[in-house]
């Protein structure tokens, strides 16, 4: 078992037993569920909207080279710069060099999962550059030296009291009643100074638009607006798969992203950035750079079976509905992208060390049912399991067990005999008081759960009786 897999098992066991954590997540998810359902009702045909979004992303990803080149051409025509980074190292090196060239001491950053993926903030930190996460949730987890807990709501795992305590320790100011309004006001005051002092603003991109050369960013707080308006250099960092063909595609993608992400009809700010400040404009950055990050995405593109994973718009809906995520939380995965999409994507981006995540699912299919771009997530988890098993990344014992299982399943009588034998053995074992011992095949199950009572009759015999009556 790999280290990442061991950590995953340990952390998920710990988190699922943490009742305070579960209560916080339950409340958050209940609020999300209500908003999401209400948001869907605002569409005349939600399923048609999902199909349209799937079609847009499918067209973009299956003509990725053409649309990226069109985007690049438009950005350059408006005075911007585009850098293509094969991996995290190249992306960080480019941005660090840019920061040094401009004498940057302070960076304000709006929420971007790609910058987490490439570990940009630590790279800038090594140069002595202060990086401020400006999304409130990101700011909170930055103060806790933690990665984001969730793609959309990075500090979902904390309640107001915990945030009050954090602010008191880290910012030296107390909000005795932990009123969210006052906590937000405190963060606003602190971050305002950073916005006006920063020489460089770094953002992600929800979409990059080929026909207009624009970077589209959806935010509610306005931190994305300030990060891209006030500093003299703006760098947008994005995965190559974020391109969409046309500006008008946003007329469907924006409402669908907002509904799936937070239940809102649209996010408060749907911002389009198409270059540095033009002559005659009152403000804006003097330089505009877009860093297109590959980092394993083109490899996934070659996998026709799973190519559609690149359609993901990072709304977080699959995390919110996933029964596994709801119990173990975002940090247990040990990855930047948690939940079902992370379990599918991470082994492709970071290798077989994360193969175990393909099994972090009950395969209930809830993730697939809510995905706004209709990614067949639970089947991709199965594809990953199959691929890792085919590549021999399973234990000899596991392979033998499955061979025996397959042989029994193909022979109904043998299967029935095996079942009967198992029930008899367990009855004897439990009668001897050896339940939960090393001889009990259910011992792992019983570690954290009440024993399952043994049925008196098998399903097979009950079925026969039912058929006769």
């Amino acid at each position, binding site marked *: 078992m790999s280290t990442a897999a061991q950590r995953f098992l340990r952390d998920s066991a710990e988190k699922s037993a943490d009742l305070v954590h579960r209560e916080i997540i339950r*409340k958050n998810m209940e609020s999300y569920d209500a908003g999401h359902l209400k948001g869907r009702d605002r*569409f*005349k*045909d939600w399923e*048609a909207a999902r*199909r349209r979004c799937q*079609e847009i992303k499918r067209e973009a990803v*299956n003509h*990725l*080279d053409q649309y*990226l080149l069109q985007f690049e051409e438009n950005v350059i025509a*408006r005075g911007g710069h*585009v*850098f*293509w980074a*094969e991996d995290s190292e190249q992306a960080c090196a480019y941005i660090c060099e840019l920061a040094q060239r401009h004498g940057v001491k302070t960076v304000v950053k709006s929420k971007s999962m790609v910058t987490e993926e490439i570990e940009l903030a630590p790279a800038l930190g090594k140069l002595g550059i202060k990086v401020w996460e400006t999304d409130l949730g990101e700011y*909170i987890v930055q103060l806790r030296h933690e990665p984001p807990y969730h793609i959309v*709501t990075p*500090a979902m795992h*904390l*309640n*107001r009291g915990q945030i009050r305590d954090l602010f008191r320790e880290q910012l030296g100011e107390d909000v005795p009643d932990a009123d*969210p309004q006052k906590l*937000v006001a405190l963060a*606003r005051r602190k971050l305002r100074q950073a916005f006006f002092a920063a020489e460089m603003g770094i953002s992600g991109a929800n979409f990059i638009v080929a026909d*207009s050369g624009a970077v589209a960013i959806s935010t509610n*707080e*306005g*931190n994305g*607006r*300030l990060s891209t*308006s006030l500093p003299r250099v703006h760098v947008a960092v994005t995965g190559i798969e974020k391109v969409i063909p046309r*500006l008008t595609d*946003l*007329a*469907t993608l*924006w409402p669908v992203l907002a509904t799936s992400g937070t239940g809102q009809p*649209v*996010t*408060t*700010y*749907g*911002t*389009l950035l*198409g270059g*540095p400040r*033009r002559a005659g*404009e*009152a*403000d*804006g950055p003097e330089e*505009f750079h877009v860093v*297109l990050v*590959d980092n394993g995405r083109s*490899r996934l*593109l*070659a996998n*026709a079976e799973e*190519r559609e994973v690149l359609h993901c718009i990072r709304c977080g809906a699959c995390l919110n509905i996933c029964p596994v995520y709801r119990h173990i939380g975002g940090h247990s995965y040990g990855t930047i992208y948690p939940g079902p999409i992370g379990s599918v994507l991470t082994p492709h981006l970071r290798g077989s060390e994360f193969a175990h995540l393909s099994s972090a699912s009950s395969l209930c299919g809830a993730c697939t049912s809510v995905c706004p771009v*209709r990614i067949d997530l639970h089947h991709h988890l199965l594809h990953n399991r199959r691929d890792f098993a085919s590549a021999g990344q399973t234990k000899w014992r596991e392979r033998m067990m499955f061979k025996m299982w397959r042989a029994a399943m193909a022979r109904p009588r043998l299967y029935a005999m095996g079942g009967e034998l198992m029930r008899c053995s367990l009855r004897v074992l439990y009668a001897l008081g050896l339940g939960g011992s090393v001889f009990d095949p259910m011992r792992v199950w019983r570690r954290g759960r009440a024993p399952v009572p043994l049925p008196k009759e098998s399903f097979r015999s009950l079925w026969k009786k039912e058929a006769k009556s």
Partner: protein
Amino acid sequence: MTAANNPGRERILERIRAGLRTAVAAPAEAASDAMIFETIANPVERFQEEAKANLIDCLMTSDSAGSAQQLAQVLNSLPPGEIFVQDAPAVRRLIERSRSQRPVRWSSQGGPPEASQATITLVEALIAQTGSILVSAACGGRGASVVAPCHIAYATRDQLVPDLETALGNASRQGILENNSFACVISGSSRTADIEKILVQGAHGPRRLVVIVESS
């Protein structure tokens, strides 16, 4: 960025092209022409409803005198201090008619200072479907709609379009993004629900968005 100092560009493009040689099957259900959103029968009514839901103060006026009066009332409700105003003839006339005594910094003088109490701008369009305003860099710059605690947008009813599709289509046709480095669809005041999903207005940007819509 030239090929010499970005050798990764060609390698990424090669990998993409190689990957795309393997065709993928079309989805089982193709996109249909089904209507995704309800048709908007009464755009003015819809805009007002959606703006209210977005916590926007939507003030409908019948003429420029009414708009100036509404503006004066809004400005009187704010703490003392400078305001930042888009330097455009229509807004200059509005400010004059409002008889505001506040010091004004015009967008032609640069971006909005941090201490601005309010900003006043025009809009590119009003969007009924989402109760939003569309602004661009031409509307006083980037900071004009986000730096101050209160943003006042001044629009006319003929700027109202039914939906996002129309607004973005018009923006493409009119070259709004070709002529401006920035555009934004704004649907309310700045907000966050990052703490226990409790809505708080004024996270980083304006706590209040006022839209004055004049009949003509």
